[in-house]
């Protein structure tokens, strides 16, 4: 991709209100970055929790109906081993959602989203969106944990995150890009240009659980609310 001196890329971002009955929502001044040094995992965990998103596919749900906050060490590890990460930031003086009593944006100025890589996290910026991709760098990739702060959803930010992930992957000639979707996420990914597998494959997940009360030598592992039962070891001598 040709590098231009400045600005890196100005993408006009116009809010398309999804609900014309409500007053039109101003697009926030946001920056999108693939630079992983911007990511503060504590903030990421907060964003995931605020969005009601779990990294576990079968999460334990807390008293407030939201999945439990994710383990910070595991989250760090997951981000570290995702070769492509996308973060979206918003200026912290932008009113988010219902916290603005007058409903008047204190933000004046341009409504364009621009891309800029920041080398250190900007203290005035709030992490409001995220997505990551795991890939083997040659054949396949999978997209995980695409989240946008609830008050800023339905403005096209999530789609921008996925587009960016896809663009980075396809620039490395990786075209087999999958995303595991719950029923709710399917509509979103369809809008991002994803569809059912052309080859008609069936998505399957390991869900064998330990029957309650069964003890024994079998290894079990907690994955969210599932207690998965590992297959017995197949190590043996001659038949």
């Amino acid at each position, binding site marked *: 991709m040709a590098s*231009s001196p400045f600005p*890196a890329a100005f993408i006009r971002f116009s809010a398309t209100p999804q609900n014309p009955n409500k007053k039109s929502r101003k697009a926030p001044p946001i920056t999108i970055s693939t630079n992983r*040094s911007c990511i*503060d995992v504590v903030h990421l965990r907060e964003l995931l929790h605020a969005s009601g998103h779990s990294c576990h596919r079968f999460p334990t749900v807390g008293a407030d109906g939201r999945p439990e906050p994710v383990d910070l060490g595991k989250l760090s590890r997951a981000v570290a*081993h995702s070769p492509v990460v996308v973060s979206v930031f918003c200026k912290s003086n932008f009113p988010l959602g219902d916290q603005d009593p007058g409903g008047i944006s204190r933000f004046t100025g341009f409504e364009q989203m621009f891309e800029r890589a920041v080398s250190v996290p900007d203290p005035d910026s709030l992490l409001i969106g995220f997505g990551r991709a795991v890939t083997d760098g040659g054949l396949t990739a*999978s997209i995980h944990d695409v989240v946008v702060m609830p008050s800023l959803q339905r403005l096209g930010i999530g789609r921008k995150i996925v587009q960016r992930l896809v663009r980075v992957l396809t620039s490395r000639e990786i075209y087999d890009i999958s995303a595991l979707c*719950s029923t709710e996420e399917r509509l979103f990914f369809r809008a991002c240009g994803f569809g059912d597998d052309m080859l008609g494959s069936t998505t399957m997940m390991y869900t064998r659980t330990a029957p309650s009360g069964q003890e024994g030598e079998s290894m079990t592992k907690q994955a969210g609310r599932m207690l998965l039962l590992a297959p017995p070891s197949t190590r043996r001598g001659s038949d």
Partner: protein
Amino acid sequence: MFQVSLSQESVQAQSTYLCLDWKRATKVCPLKANFWDSIRSGFLKNNNTTEVIEPPSTPPEDEEPLPQEFVLTERTQPDGTVEEIVFSSGGDVDVYDLQALCDKVGWPRRPPSKVATALKNSYMVATLHAINRSSGSEGNDRKQLIGMARATSDHAFNATIWDVLVDPSYQGRGLGKALIEQMIRALLQRDIGNITLFADDKVVDFYRNLGFEPDPQGIKGMFWYPRY
């Protein structure tokens, strides 16, 4: 170390490095130093360090699964030679041996360089080899790749199993089952709980028997379609 620059959209932007070789990274680039800083800042609230810090040695729980190698089965052939089926994870797979195996099962060919990259950056590559040990003491053992499976993972939550295949002349003996079971054990051992695969119609029952469920709770895989 395998480093590929992915995004160079503006001169002042720091390039995003597709750093795929985490474990063997020994050199520091400023980006990676900042990255480890930011990871640490997640734990220490008042971390204002600006010095370039070497990435710490991989924490113990971050290691990839321990490579294993052991004999699965052993049988004496009619001609007196002994055939061992050996399971191995962490060994190198010759791309052309793999290509020959893919030909046998009727899979379309893929560019060898891409396959090599994919294998190198997989979280786990498990293989089955048939070793025919000659009865003499000359050591004329024949070793042949007869099965493989691999998984990609973020080392924490998700793993996807790809490219599971067994030589047709060795199918029906529980070898594919052994491959997958070992892989699942290794993943669960590392607390990786979202284990996914995309199965052809013909093998859905095979995986069902191994504890996989189709579309559990409505979770389905979707795939990107290019738009021109």
